[in-house]
């Protein structure tokens, strides 16, 4: 197989050497998916699980992901918790301040659809009402494993998106990824 054909599949390593050969676009996609920096965004109790996911037991650093305190350095926004009407404009503004390409993970029932506060007049019925959501992680709150699964699925999507673009295929329709609730409460 020639180098050209092998390049179509992504990264190749020169045998016996320390050299990687790849297209710039492949490298970019690989780098993008492998260093998703997240915007620190704890809104309520889901934030506790998000912090646990980032802490040593589950260790989001394994996936090249850690939290930034500014939207200008963030690639993905994990909305962890309920969103009040008063908070929503600030979330929208933070989302607009993030550089493209940007992704949103709605963590938990509240960020996905309002959760138990759906009938409340002051709670927004899901963060997808005003920002596009890529991954919904169900649970109340979701286990750290579920959040990690959502992140891994998002990484796959980033990879696929790029490959489709490269091969001249139409860009896949961005149907939201749904991570069902599992574990002790699922």
């Amino acid at each position, binding site marked *: 197989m020639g180098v050209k054909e092998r390049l179509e599949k992504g990264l190749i390593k020169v045998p016996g050497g320390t050299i990687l050969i790849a297209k710039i676009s492949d490298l970019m996609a690989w780098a993008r998916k492998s260093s998703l920096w997240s915007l620190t965004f704890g809104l309520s109790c889901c934030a506790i699980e998000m912090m646990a996911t980032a802490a040593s037991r589950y260790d989001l650093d394994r996936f090249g992901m850690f939290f930034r305190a500014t939207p200008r350095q963030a690639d993905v926004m994990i909305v962890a918790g309920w969103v009040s*009407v*008063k908070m*929503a*404009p600030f979330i*929208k503004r933070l989302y607009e301040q993030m550089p493209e390409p940007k992704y949103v993970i709605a963590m938990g029932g509240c960020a996905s659809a309002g959760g138990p506060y759906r009938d409340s*007049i*002051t709670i*927004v*019925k899901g963060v997808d*009402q*005003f920002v596009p959501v890529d991954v919904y992680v169900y649970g109340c709150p979701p286990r750290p494993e579920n959040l990690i699964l959502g992140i891994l699925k998002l990484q796959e999507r980033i990879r696929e998106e790029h490959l489709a673009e490269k091969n001249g295929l139409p860009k896949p329709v961005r149907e939201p990824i749904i991570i069902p609730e599992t574990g002790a409460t699922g």
Partner: protein
Amino acid sequence: MKEAIENLLQHFGEAVTAWSQVSPDEVRFTICPDKWQEVAQYLRDDPQWQMDYPADLTVWDTGQEFGVYLRLWSSVYNHNVLVLTTLSRERPVIASLAQLYPGVNWHEREMYDMYGVIFDGHPNLKRILLPDDWEGFPFRKDYVAEPSGDPLRGPQPVN
């Protein structure tokens, strides 16, 4: 405590419309709203009362009646006092106690926020929990609202 109650009743006369002693160390006064600040100041400064701790200040709304009540506690005598007054639902204006008890500043803002009670003389009477552009006072019994359709805005009051 008996003497203190008698002195208070004598001092305010007609302004106290009803009172009852519910337990040896708790007494309730129903007063007319224009003496709200004077009664609170009297209870705070009179040596027989010395109600130095504002335990609670909130609104009650039964659908018909609408009013505010203040619960005070004295760290000297361990006495509790509940001061009630009724207000008109259409124009609920009452004197602010924020100068007497700085701790009730945010209570009064929340009461304004949720019930629309206007505190005369409050240093910074604006919404505290709800967004600044919120319409209506949602904790009132007669508050009826429908969704505005915009997720970034609150519901719109119907009446």
